[in-house]
């Protein structure tokens, strides 16, 4: 199935369809992750791969155009057609070559199951007091990686704002895209279903956020789901309404606050005499401190991810709206 959908991405010309197929592909791989007993990853892949990424791609598509141009075969020399094939085949040979000595799939004797990991499985319960091992590794043992990842997301938000967040007024001056959004005409459409749906999604997001220690989920997933709720709101009620609830300026602050909650927790540990991100010092009982720390950093991740995702969506769609308005302005 996966292979089929992936292959179809090569041959389908219509970009809209390609993106849809890609979404399907992501959803399938999420199912695959679930069958491999990786619910956290599945949840993330489903919400990001099948949710956010296609939305962004569609947003881009709206700003560009629909069809992938038929490639003028005649112009392509044999070399430029063969080169990708050769490179890919070489890589493929290397990959298959690599598998020959791999431990078999699901083999309990494989090294990865016998080194490092046993400690997580056996002791994370006592050391962090959290049943979800993924969460405790994510937020504590390898919490620093996750900090890095929060910053990657932050960097993406920053980059998109830098690239698309500004509009030129024609005289060479540029200004933030959203500074004058309050003037835009309110254009709400009532939609009963979404009114019921959105609070539910938000509730679910909060559940995923704060129940992440016990069941699959955590900051990322919650953040993405939260953002999806807003995106849905924006789609239904129009961008301006969404701006009113969650203004882009506030989002910018939230991005920063999110990463700072995470980083600040680490600094707090430093001040209290521990190593960076050593949550044990946050409370008199290390286990309790770990718990507090994990909740804090998950919150930080959640806030960052949610605000960045919303920013991404707003920036893309705001840009699209501008270009539509501009075109209409030209026509009239």
């Amino acid at each position: 199935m996966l292979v089929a959908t992936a292959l179809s991405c090569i041959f389908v010309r219509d970009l809209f369809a390609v993106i849809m197929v890609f979404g399907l592909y992501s959803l399938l791989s999420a199912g695959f992750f679930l069958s491999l007993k990786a619910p956290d990853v599945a949840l993330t892949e489903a919400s990001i791969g099948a949710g956010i990424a296609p939305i962004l791609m569609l947003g881009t598509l709206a700003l560009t155009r629909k069809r992938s141009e038929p490639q003028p075969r005649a112009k392509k020399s044999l070399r430029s057609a063969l080169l990708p094939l050769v490179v890919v085949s070489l890589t493929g040979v290397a990959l298959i070559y690599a598998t020959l000595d791999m431990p078999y799939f699901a083999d309990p004797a494989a090294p990865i199951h016998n080194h490092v990991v046993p400690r997580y499985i056996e002791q994370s319960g006592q050391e962090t007091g959290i049943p979800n091992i993924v969460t405790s590794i994510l937020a504590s043992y390898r919490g620093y990686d996750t900090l890095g990842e929060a910053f990657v997301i932050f960097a993406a938000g920053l980059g998109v704002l830098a690239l698309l967040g500004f509009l030129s007024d024609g005289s060479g001056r540029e200004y933030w895209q959203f500074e004058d959004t309050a003037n835009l005409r309110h254009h709400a459409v009532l939609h009963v279903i979404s009114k019921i749906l959105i609070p539910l999604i938000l509730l679910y997001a909060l559940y995923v956020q704060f129940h992440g220690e016990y069941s699959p989920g955590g900051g990322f997933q919650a953040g993405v789901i939260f953002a999806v709720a807003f995106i849905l709101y924006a789609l239904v009620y129009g961008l301006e309404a969404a701006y009113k609830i969650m203004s882009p300026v506030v989002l910018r602050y939230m991005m920063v606050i999110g990463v700072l909650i995470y980083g600040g927790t680490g600094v707090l540990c430093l001040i209290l005499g521990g190593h960076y991100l050593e949550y044990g010092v946050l409370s008199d009982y290390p286990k309790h401190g770990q718990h507090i720390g994990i909740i804090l950093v998950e919150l930080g991740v959640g806030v960052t991810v949610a605000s960045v995702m919303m920013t991404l969506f707003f920036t893309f769609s705001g840009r699209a709206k501008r270009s539509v308005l501009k075109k209409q302005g030209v026509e009239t």
Partner: protein
Amino acid sequence: MMSAIFANLPALQVILPLLFAPICFLLRKRGAAWLLAFCVSLCTFAVSIALFMQVSAAGPLSYAMGGWDPPWGIEYRVDSFNAPFLVLLSLMFCVTLAFSYKSVEKEIVQPRHALFYSAFMLCVAGLLGIVITGDAFNVFVFLEISSLSSYILISFGKDRRALTAAFQYLIMGTIGATFLLIGIGFIYMMTGTLNMADLAVRLPSVMDTHTVRAAFAFIIVGMSIKVALFPLHVWLPNAYGYAPSAASVFLAATSTKVSLYVLIRFTFTVFGAGFAFGAMPLQPILLVLAVTAVFVGSLSAIFQTNIKHVLAYSSVAQIGYMVIGFALASHAGLSAGILHMFNHAVMKGCLFLVAGCVFYRFRSARIEDFRGLGKTMPWTMGAFVVGGLGLIGMPLTAGFVSKWYLIMAALDHGFVGFLIIAAVLAGSLLAVAYVWRIVEVAYFQAPDEVHENGKEAPFILLVPAWFMALLTLYIGIDPSLVVGAAESAALSLLGSTP
């Protein structure tokens, strides 16, 4: 309090720029953002110096992030190989910021300034994080921080080709990072650990498997893309050429070097020289590619019309020198390679600063813009001549010192060594051609009306440029500090192989 700071220096080194980046992002005033960034850069530099002294006095440091001992937690490990890199990175951080106050004002529209500084700090933090970490997967995460922020930095460029350059870099960089991820996945699969020191202990028992060999290949190829080793260098010239001046200064001086650092780190610390150069045919491949890089890079540099492109192609060639040193895999070769990484950072930094000064005046840095600069901007051109002589490898400049060591190292390798020496020397001759072409234009062609009224660059831009120029000369006259650092770095790398 002091002892607490000293105990946590490795963490501070990275989180200082990392955490202040978002704060910087919120600042509205241009000056405030710059001032914050500059203060942070000074603190970062102080931290790196303190770390360097600690390491030279007391040997390698290990810092457990989150208080979890490696290999369960993430380890920061500072030894005599990466401590000098930290100093270099933070030094370039300071110098570039000093330069960027005026330069960014001119090249980037006002509301984006805070974003620029913020992205810049993220980029520095990412690079510092790559260098300092002792965890293979953490390398990937910080590699992505620095890469994403450098794509952003490049896309700040005014020319629309900056966008395509950034896109191309993004695609190639992500392929490189994904290759690295595949490689790390393979070695993780075979050993069950991600900590570098732990990997070095556990890898030898599974060394003779297809998977480990493929992992090695993937890591080398992936990082070679980021290193811009020929023929994977195509992203580099445009990326450096169209980025804003301040960004090209910093990226040119540090970014490829950090990738090369990762390459060397994995080769020697994780896999071990015996495996990399014994079981795998790394040496001939790298040597051939590096020598080709020297020629292709230098020749292309001669035919460029934009000074930043000249310098960028020259970087491709100079990276060839570094890789030659690294591929020789002897103590002498490795120290020569590492030495050249530092020296080239200083010289190329100086030259890109000069290009930035010219860009500041004329809004472009084509060769034509250099007409008559010998008269109108004598100080700027003075720094250019010093840096250019360094690239050629004139005595009393940093470039001479690294060339000297490189040739000394190659002499131990018999016939192959002679070929390498020939390539190195031919490279310097080509460097004469592309440097002198610009010097001639600057001193012998009369300026046209646009350039006639050119004034010397503002003092605040000249200070960093001359700082780097004097550093080039200083290293050329008394290189004991850098040479000592490079040699002990090489020793620590080779000593750590079983």
